[in-house]
């Protein structure tokens, strides 16, 4: 079978010329796509092709133009210049419906499902099968069951979507896209919200599609996934295509370097000597959600404590419980050697904790972390209004100075401080959120998913920032689904499963394999025999 065109990679190549797509085997091809919003061009002259039975991965930093490219290919936006070619004919998608009619479908990153409807009702939402004047529930449930089975979903057509775990919802979303036969399926970071075992299942779904001869375009931040899955890889940077390579010819490191256009600094900071000082924080018997989650733990100054485990293992719930953000009880807490009084134990709140020097960074930066419609200043100082504005009146000048300092200190890249938080890229939002909680000058920082959905350059900066923090003698708890991240920055890792801490890993025992094993089997690797 003729493969689509791909460039040979020269070692460390960063500047590569573009070649015309090989139209013969291409199911869908983009020719010189350019997209401008007013005076701002976000995509420059990008050509690529997607072939039958291949997974074509698109990688690039946030803002590289990946989303725009996807939306152009699936009819959600129309190009300023350039066009699409399908079956050797020039084609235009005026909207996503036209693209879907032509067999091209985009699986959105955000889960767009109605929680109060069943799985089948969601799958057929807007295209219900009619039976006279009524809808044909039996036929829809039957067809839904087939689709769900074909993608290995565990839910049934009659389940309420609101009751499903995130991973199953994701599959329902994919099922919705695959309800009718498709020739091209475009995935927009489908694994961004999934834990590792769920990712594996999802990759199998994508492989299944490939085996059926579907042309798959796959956008992801996780380079390990891309390496495991892709046949060809196209790299975008600053709205331009850098090139297309056969996946076998690129290592993850090369991909990362092509994405940022420079040699990467070391992604993770060098390991520190494990601290032995007296604990900064001792938590005994924290019981969350009526016993669904229960744990005790200790954090030392100068230590990054990693919390691993699958999504749903109770990691986030544990710390939200600690912060007083969900119902929880705790029998004892010690801060820097001093036990908290019974009253304090009962009246835990974000505000109280902040006064004690402990802050929590939510994993949901858009939903719970930042006011997306507000500008940088109100976001930055929201948690520390008292410190920034000691008087009755808000001090706008001082606030602006704080913003400028934070922008510099945390390298938040903004064209103007008058932007709203929602206009920032994911990485810059994360840095803004970090700056926001650091305004309180905490001694212990709990960060839930510090680098979810952000690009590799920003990731590295955040890791180095965490390193700096603990080198100053502060304590840091990092909750993460990304195993390399835990291995890369944690001095000690607690693995959770089913709401309990099942394993503590230290030193050389912190490996991806050990974490996965503990998270899935609940025992330390090698302990079972």
């Amino acid at each position, binding site marked *: 079978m003729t493969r689509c065109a791909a460039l040979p990679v020269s070692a460390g190549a960063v500047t590569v010329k573009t070649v015309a797509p090989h139209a013969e085997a291409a199911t869908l091809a983009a020719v010189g796509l350019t997209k401008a*919003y*007013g005076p*701002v*061009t*976000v995509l420059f002259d990008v050509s690529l092709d997607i072939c039958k039975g291949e997974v074509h991965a698109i990688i690039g930093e*946030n*803002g590289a*133009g990946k989303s725009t490219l996807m939306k152009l290919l699936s009819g959600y936006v129309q190009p300023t210049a350039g066009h699409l070619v399908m079956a050797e004919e020039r084609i235009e998608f005026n909207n996503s419906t036209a693209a879907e009619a032509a067999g091209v479908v985009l699986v959105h990153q955000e889960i767009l499902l109605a929680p109060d409807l069943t799985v089948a009702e969601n799958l057929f939402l807007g295209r219900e099968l009619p039976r006279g004047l009524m809808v044909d529930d039996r036929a829809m449930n039957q067809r839904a069951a087939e689709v769900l089975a074909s993608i290995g979903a565990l839910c049934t057509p009659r389940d309420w979507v609101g009751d499903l775990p995130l991973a199953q919802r994701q599959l329902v979303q994919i099922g919705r896209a695959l309800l009718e036969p498709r020739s091209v399926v475009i995935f927009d970071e489908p694994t961004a919200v999934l834990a590792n075992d769920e990712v594996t299942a999802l990759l199998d779904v994508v492989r299944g599609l490939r085996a059926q001869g579907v042309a798959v375009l796959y956008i992801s931040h996780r380079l390990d996934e891309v390496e495991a899955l892709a046949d060809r890889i196209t790299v975008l940077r*600053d*709205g331009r295509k850098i090139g297309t390579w056969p996946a076998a010819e690129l290592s993850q490191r090369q991909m990362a370097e092509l994405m940022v*256009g420079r040699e990467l600094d070391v992604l993770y900071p060098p390991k520190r000597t494990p601290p032995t000082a007296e604990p900064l924080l001792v938590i005994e018997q924290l019981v969350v959600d009526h016993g669904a989650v229960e744990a005790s733990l200790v954090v030392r100054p100068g230590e990054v404590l990693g919390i691993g485990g699958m999504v749903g293992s109770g990691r986030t719930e544990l710390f939200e419980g600690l912060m007083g*953000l969900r119902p929880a009880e705790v029998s004892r807490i010690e801060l820097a050697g001093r036990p908290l009084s019974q009253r304090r134990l009962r009246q835990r*709140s*974000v*505000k109280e*904790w*902040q006064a004690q020097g402990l802050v*929590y960074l*939510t994993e*949901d930066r858009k*939903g*719970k*972390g*930042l*006011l*997306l*419609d*507000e500008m940088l200043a*109100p976001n930055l100082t*929201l*948690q520390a*209004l*008292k410190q920034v*504005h000691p008087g*009755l*009146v*808000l001090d706008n000048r001082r606030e602006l100075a704080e913003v400028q300092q934070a922008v510099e200190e945390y390298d938040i*890249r*903004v*064209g*103007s401080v*008058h*932007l*709203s938080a929602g*206009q*920032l*890229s994911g990485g*810059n939002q994360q840095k803004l959120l970090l700056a*926001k909680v650091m305004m309180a000058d905490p001694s212990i920082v709990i960060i839930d998913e510090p680098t979810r959905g952000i690009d590799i350059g920003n990731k590295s900066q955040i890791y180095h920032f965490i390193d700096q923090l603990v080198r100053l003698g502060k304590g840091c708890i990092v909750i993460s689904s990304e195993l390399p991240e835990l291995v890369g920055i944690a001095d000690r890792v607690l693995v959770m499963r089913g709401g309990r801490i099942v394993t503590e890993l230290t030193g050389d025992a912190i490996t991806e394999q050990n974490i996965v094993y503990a998270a899935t089997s609940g025992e330390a690797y090698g302990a079972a025999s």
Partner: protein
Amino acid sequence: MTSATTDMSITKPQRRIRWASMGPFIALAVVILVGTLLNSNFATGTNIANVVTRSAFIAIIAVGATFVISSRCLDLSVGSMMAFVTGIMILTMNYLQPSLGPNAIFVGALVGLLVGAACGLLNGLIVTVGRIEPFIVTLGTMGIFRALITWMSDGGSIPMDRALREAYRPVYFGDVLGIPIPVAITLLVALVGAFVLYRTKYGRHCMAVGSNADVARFSGISVTRVRTLAFVIQGLCVGIAAICYIPRLGAATPTTGQLWELQVITAVVIGGTLLRGGRARIWGTIAGALILEVIANLMVLSNMVSEYLVAAVQGVIIILAMLAHRLIK
């Protein structure tokens, strides 16, 4: 080439925001211009003073509503709360008049503020502690307050003691430095409101809660406190409006403040405050209240549309304003 292309879409939304905040004032100017052209009686000094004075009640209450709405709540009970507070105030003053004389007015005013604040607190606590939709809660209290004033007045009216009329009269009909007193009070309320909303921590918290309650909660802000306080502010504003209102007619009746919730919410919305919270415009609200009163005045002055249709026109305006919000978005 390597510079970030990510965050360059800077200027557009800001220009849009500025337009949105200018909108109500432009609309007010247009309405006044149309009025002047349409009717020669409109632009006379007495008429203008009349219109502005009459808009004071809605404007004062709407300042409070701006707080409630910016924290993503809604208060439908303001109209009947107004009637209830008015009734309580008059009864108090009448009761105290024999012993205190004209000083009964001050006690009555204080009682008005307290009762207003208490009604607001009631609304607020049911919404926040009871975790019930503000729409339903205030729909319920709207009925309760309305029934109470009807019951208190036995379906008729609660007139103010004649002995107090003369002393109380200037609060509505008098002026300071040529500014009618209700207008001066409105200005004061708006100034204080704008100060609290734009320049204090509470105002910032209000915006944050309205913009995204989860973010506020995760930032250590008590959503319960912020929203409850917004309802209390609303109640206080109703109390202030009641104080200005009583000398105008000198009585409370079951129809006092009827459909004022429509006017109040309309004033807030056409003023540019977002009904979904997070963005508040005090001065826009004031402009909104003026627009409504000017339109009502024009309907009375000219014979093109029956003045009985004033509420219908206001209903149309709020719907058009919401459509405009959508289109601007």
